[in-house]
Structures are given as structure tokens and as C-alpha cells.
């Protein structure tokens, strides 16, 4: 059965720390992996990764895919309180219906 597993489930850090969030997947005919950030409202799109070893970067956030290890990491450097959120990972299932298999998310709390 296709599945996406994120770790850790929750994390508490201090401002300025660097964090690494993990996402591993078992999905047939892998095509891409997506990262989202959810604060109090809707999930907002961060990155889509399709190629192994190529880092995607946006400010202090970066992500990389390792197809050999069937995983991805999301790094946040110099964390700020505004980074506090749930970070969700999703992988589309094979087929034409574009159904995303979602992880349970990592709840990140950044304390001042």
C-alpha cells in the first residue's frame, strides 16, 4: 500500500536553530514529492521535487530529494517564530486521478 511517513511528528526549537524534517515514501511509479506549510489556515505550497540530488531553495528553506533512499528532507536555517507551522509532505499516486498521498505532518514550534 502506498504510504508517506514524516518524522519527527513534532519538534520544538529555539529561534536561530537549524531544523531538518524528513519525509520517506513508498509509492508505485514515483513521479514527484511536494512540501507544504500549514499555519493556522490552508496548506501553502513550498516545493515540488522530481529529480534526485537537486536542491530547491527559497530563502532559509531548502529541500532535496533522494530517490535511492526514497526520501526527502526539508531544511530550515536560522529559524524564526514565523516558521512555526505544520509541514506536510505529499506524493502523488500513480494513475491519472492525481490523488496525493499525504504524510501526517511535522509540527514545528519555534520559541523566541
Amino acid at each position: 500500500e502506498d504510504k508517506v511517513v514524516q518524522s519527527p511528528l513534532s519538534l520544538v526549537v529555539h529561534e536561530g536553530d537549524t531544523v531538518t524534517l524528513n519525509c520517506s515514501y513508498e509509492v508505485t511509479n514515483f513521479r514527484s514529492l511536494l512540501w507544504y506549510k500549514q499555519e493556522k489556515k490552508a496548506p501553502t505550497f513550498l516545493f515540488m521535487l522530481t529529480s534526485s540530488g537537486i536542491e530547491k531553495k527559497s530563502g532559509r528553506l531548502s529541500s532535496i530529494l533522494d530517490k535511492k533512499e526514497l526520501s526527502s528532507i526539508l531544511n530550515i536555517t536560522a529559524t524564526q517564530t514565523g516558521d512555526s507551522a505544520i509541514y506536510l509532505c505529499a506524493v502523488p499516486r500513480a494513475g491519472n486521478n492525481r490523488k496525493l498521498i499525504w504524510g501526517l505532518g511535522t509540527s514545528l514550534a519555534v520559541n523566541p
Partner: protein
Amino acid sequence: DTAVSQTPKYLVTQMGNDKSIKCEQNLGHDTMYWYKQDSKKFLKIMFSYNNKELIINETVPNRFSPKSPDKAHLNLHINSLELGDSAVYFCASSHRTSGRTDTQYFGPGTRLTVL
């Protein structure tokens, strides 16, 4: 603003009532989705339409009925509301023929509370 929008943002109602949630996107996408997010924050897909055709229909009580009058709109009607229907319902959209076919963009959510 180009976005996915939902109405209403909040909905408080009594058990047994029938209610609808509306979703519209002006992103030019051809695929739309309904998700339910419960108190544990897990996102569960309910339905998806591509160009008005139902393509995902998960195991959802038949009290829930989606309707897509055109590819920019996807509504969700819920009959005989139950306490367990209380959740946040998100609409999302994506474009199947673009380079980012898997990327879904979410609406702000509708918080449904059934009393």
C-alpha cells in the same frame, strides 16, 4: 486576486440540517478537490473533479454530494449533518496539463461545526 476561494469561512449548524459549501478558482485549473481535515490535522481526500468529471470518490458517506457546474467551481452539499462531520473542509485545485500537474493550491477552508 487569483486564488481558490470558499464560502462560507465558518458554518455553525444543528445536527440533521442540510448545508452547502461553495468553491471557486480563477487560476485556470482543470481539476478541483475537496478535503476534510479533522482535529488531528490529517488531510483526507474526499472527491476530485477534472473538467466536470468525477475522478476521485473516496469512501465518504453518501450524505456528501459534490457538484461541479463548470471546471472553475466545485460545491459540496451535505445532508443530515452529524456531529462527526465537524471539521475544516478545504477545496483545492491543480492543472493537469502544466509542468506542475501534481501541485495543488488550497482555498482558505470552511470550518464546519455541528451542534
